[in-house]
C-alpha cells in the first residue's frame, strides 16, 4: 500500500495539469491554443500550469516558426510519460483496493 501511495504524484493532483498530461500522453505534440480549447482555461492559468510541468521536466517546450508566426508546441518527456503511467496505475490500484 505504501508503494502505491508513493506513485501518486502531487503535481498531477490538479485538473488542468492532469488534463495537459493526459492530452500529451496520446498526442505527439500539441500547441498552446489546442490545449486551451480542450481544457477551457484562460491563457494565464494554462501558462502557469505548463510552467509547473516544465520545471518538473515532465514536458518539453518546442518553439518554432510557421512562416513568420511563432508557434509553440508541447511534448511529454520520457520521464513525464513514465511518471504519469505510474500515477495512472496507482489510481487504478487504489480504486480497486477501496472497493
Amino acid at each position, binding site marked *: 500500500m505504501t508503494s502505491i501511495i508513493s506513485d501518486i504524484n502531487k503535481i498531477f493532483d490538479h485538473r488542468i495539469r492532469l488534463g495537459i498530461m493526459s492530452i500529451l500522453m496520446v498526442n505527439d505534440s500539441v500547441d498552446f491554443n489546442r490545449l486551451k480549447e480542450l481544457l477551457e482555461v484562460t491563457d494565464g492559468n494554462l501558462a502557469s500550469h505548463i510552467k509547473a510541468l516544465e520545471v518538473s521536466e515532465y514536458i518539453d517546450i518546442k518553439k518554432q516558426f510557421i512562416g513568420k508566426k511563432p508557434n509553440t508546441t508541447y511534448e511529454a518527456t520520457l520521464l513525464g510519460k513514465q511518471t504519469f503511467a505510474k500515477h495512472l496505475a496507482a*489510481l487504478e490500484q*487504489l480504486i480497486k483496493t*477501496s472497493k
Partner: protein
Amino acid sequence: MESEKYLAQLQEIQSMMQKSSKFLSLSGLSGILAGTYALIGAGIVYSMSARFISPLRFNSSEFLTVTIIAILVMVLSFATGVILSVRKARKKQEVIWNQVSKLFIMSFMVPLVTGGLFAIILVTRRDFGLVAPVTLLFYGISLVNASRYSYETLRNLGFIFIILGLLNSLFIGYGLYFWMFGFGVCHIFYGAFMYLKYDYKKQ
C-alpha cells in the same frame, strides 16, 4: 471519499485522452442518409438497366448517366456528413476544425482520392468491370485508416467494404448489387447503430 477523488481523476484522464485524439463529431444520422441516397441512386440506375444487357455492362452514353448519378450521390453524402458533423460539434460546443479533425480528414481522403483517380483511369481505359470493386476497396481502406482518429468501430465497417470489394472483383459485372449492399444497406445499418449508441442517448 478519497477513492471518489481518484475515480474522478481517472474519468478526467480518460475523457481528455479521447477528446484530444479522436474526432467524435461524426453523426450516425449522416450514415443513414448517405445509405438512403445510395439506394435511391441505385434504384434509378437499376430501373434503367432493365434495358441493358444483364449483368450490367454499359455502353458509354449510358455509363455517363450512371456516373452522374454516382457523383451526385457522393456529393450529397459528403455534404450531409459535413453539415451534420458541424451541427453535432456546435451542440457539444467544440471547435470543428482542429488538429484531430484535420488528421481524420487527411487519413480518410488520401486512400479515397487515390482510389477515385484510379477508378477514373480505369474508366478512360474502358475497363468498366473493375470500377465498382476499386471504389469499394479504397473506400474500405479509407475507413480503416481514418478509424484511428475516430470511433474505433468505424474500422469494422471498413473491413466489410474491403471484403465486398474483393468479392466483387471475383464477380465482375455485379457491381451495382455490391454497391447497393455496401454504400446503401451497410451505411444505413451502421449509421443506425452509431446513432443509437452515441447520439440518441445523449439528446
